[in-house]
């Protein structure tokens, strides 16, 4: 008879089970942000200004290989001249404890408006990117990233 039997927290279940939830599940059940929290953050920055699609290339994996460090590449289409440049780019996560992930400020001297970073994702969720142009217009793009348990690959 086996005697020592660990009791699992959610965190451990994930770590020990054959199909351990990647990063995500590892986060204890905090209150997660949601669509509304992200919308509220954007409203704080830009009020109710309309947002257009296009111009943003949001390059993320469909499935996170490691939820602790999910790569994200952003590129905004812009001539980046004094007359027409990208001023700021913000990234939000709908399913993390905090909606804000990162914000970048650009000047025409940057030459191009692109950035790459890694973010931690607590679970499968949408990533929202908002770009503010020098003329005040806003663009947005959205991408879903799946955070999975893994294992079982044939």
């Amino acid at each position: 008879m086996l005697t020592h039997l660990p009791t699992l927290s959610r965190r451990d279940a994930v770590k020990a089970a054959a199909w351990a939830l990647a990063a995500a599940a590892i986060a204890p059940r905090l209150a997660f942000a949601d669509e509304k929290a992200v919308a509220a953050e954007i409203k704080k920055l830009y009020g109710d200004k309309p947002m257009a699609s296009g111009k943003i290339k949001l390059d993320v994996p469909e499935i996170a290989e490691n939820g602790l460090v999910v790569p994200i590449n952003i590129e905004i289409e812009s001539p980046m001249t004094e007359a027409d440049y990208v001023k700021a780019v913000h990234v939000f996560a709908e399913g993390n404890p905090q909606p804000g992930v990162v914000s970048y400020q650009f000047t025409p001297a940057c030459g191009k408006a692109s950035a790459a970073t890694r973010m931690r994702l607590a679970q499968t969720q949408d990533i929202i990117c908002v770009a503010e142009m020098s003329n005040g217009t806003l663009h947005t793009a959205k991408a879903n990233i799946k955070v999975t348990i893994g294992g079982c690959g044939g």
Partner: protein
Amino acid sequence: MISRREFLQATAAAAALTAGSGLGPLGRAAAQQKLSQADILRFQPQGQITILHVADIHAQLMPLQFREPAVNLGVGEVKGLPPHLTDAAFREHFKIAAGSADAFALTSDDFVSLARNYGRMGGLDRIATLVKAIRAERGDDKVLLLDGGDTWQGSWSSLQTKGQDMVDVMSALKLDAMTSHWEFTLGAERVKEIVEKASFAFLAQNIRDKEWNEPVFPPRKVFEKGGVKVAVIGQALPRTAVANPRWMFPEWEFGIREDELQKQVEEARAEGAAIVVLLSHDGFDVDRKLASRVKGIDVILTAHTHDAMPGLIRVGDTVLVASGSHGKFVSRLDIAVKDGKVADIRFKLMPVFADAIAPDSEMATLVTKLRAPYAADLAREIGRTDSLLYRRGNFNGSFDDLICDAMLTQRDAEIALSPGFRWGGSLLPGEPITWEAITNATAITYPNCYRMEMTGAQLKEILEDVADNIFHPDPYFQGGGDMVRIGGMGYAIDVGKPMGSRISGLTHLKSGKPIDASRKYVVAGWASVNEGTQGPPIWDVVRDHVAATRTITIKPNDAVKVSGA
């Protein structure tokens, strides 16, 4: 019982032939069961180049039995499309007569009686015979031999030699190039060590090192064959870091990387490639989608999902080939190039019937030598089986039931979880369960059988997650493999529902009670992707169970209720 040698003359299944009118890819000889090596090799050659493809051999040096799936569901746009056809539907689609050699090789019903008639399939010495015969016929300078990966893992000898036995046989076979998946579970250092010395190219356009985002392996290689340039681009399993322990190759990132693949195709064309081949380990449905999005690939040699199809699947200007697994088949493609472009492709899926093909003596000698250190261990009989033991099927396999039973009894657990691996041989009723048979179903580098408590809610979460990995309607979210196998618990699954609502009706089988989401259950399982998992290796758990039981009988498993298919 008919001896295996006699199958050439066998007529035992002839009565069944009247049931189907098709002649299948092997033609009349196969339907009439007078199949010979010449029938298997028969091919009207054409064009400048012959490509031979093997995939998912899973380190099976010797001929074996491998039953194809009875349940292999497609979802979304590919529902009901090949390769998601089984048994009668499969035979009807590919015009194969019931009871024929093709029916035995490619479908699952009537497997036991046909297996006794037709014998085992595969074996590197038989594959060598076919490859050498085709090289002799076409000329060495016209033949390209490609391996889709999952070659270095799946047997006791490959585990003990860290893949060296398979590297040696594939080198002897004069392999030109391969791509990879399970190879990476030997660890990054070992893979790099092999690749540096290998006589063949190891290609993967979709692996990057994390720090610099640079390619880890060459993405492609251009071969000149029959006066034609052929570019072979490698595509490793995009989900390797999710499907297998990431800590074994911590510096690498995978992914499908469509844009980079498109660039590879364009660069290859710019270099003058008349033929662009994707040597892929994506899995069939992923490659079918990829073929509709990445332009300019002539041939995708698929792997990973272990599908075997005796016909090409066409997507736009791209053809897809599915060459099966475990050495059961070798695909041959003769390609005619005209004006620098592919003009015609002729294809045959050659079944490797061990009793019809004379073993190549050089390869047979090498295989015997490589297995010699383990031969006595491998042959050791642990018990016997009264039931057919097999692996493939979306929801369960009787060999997995055996593994789950072993975990429940040997680890004193209420519920057992066994991964839905698609590799591992089949055993016929009455056959011995040898150490080789046990390790053919379990030989991995992370074998520890853990024991722990999980709540009912956690169990459901695992089932939902794995189900989404198989039944997500977008193939790019499918990782391959079958559903996790469960011992001691039943459930219902609606494969057509979205993530989070496919699984219901979890039942503790012993008590007949519903699984309580908040109660903790003692769970045993193996193949954890986490570093430092504690517990005995699974092969010892299975061995102890078989030794204690002596004769294994597996009852039909109806614990999983499937709908939405």
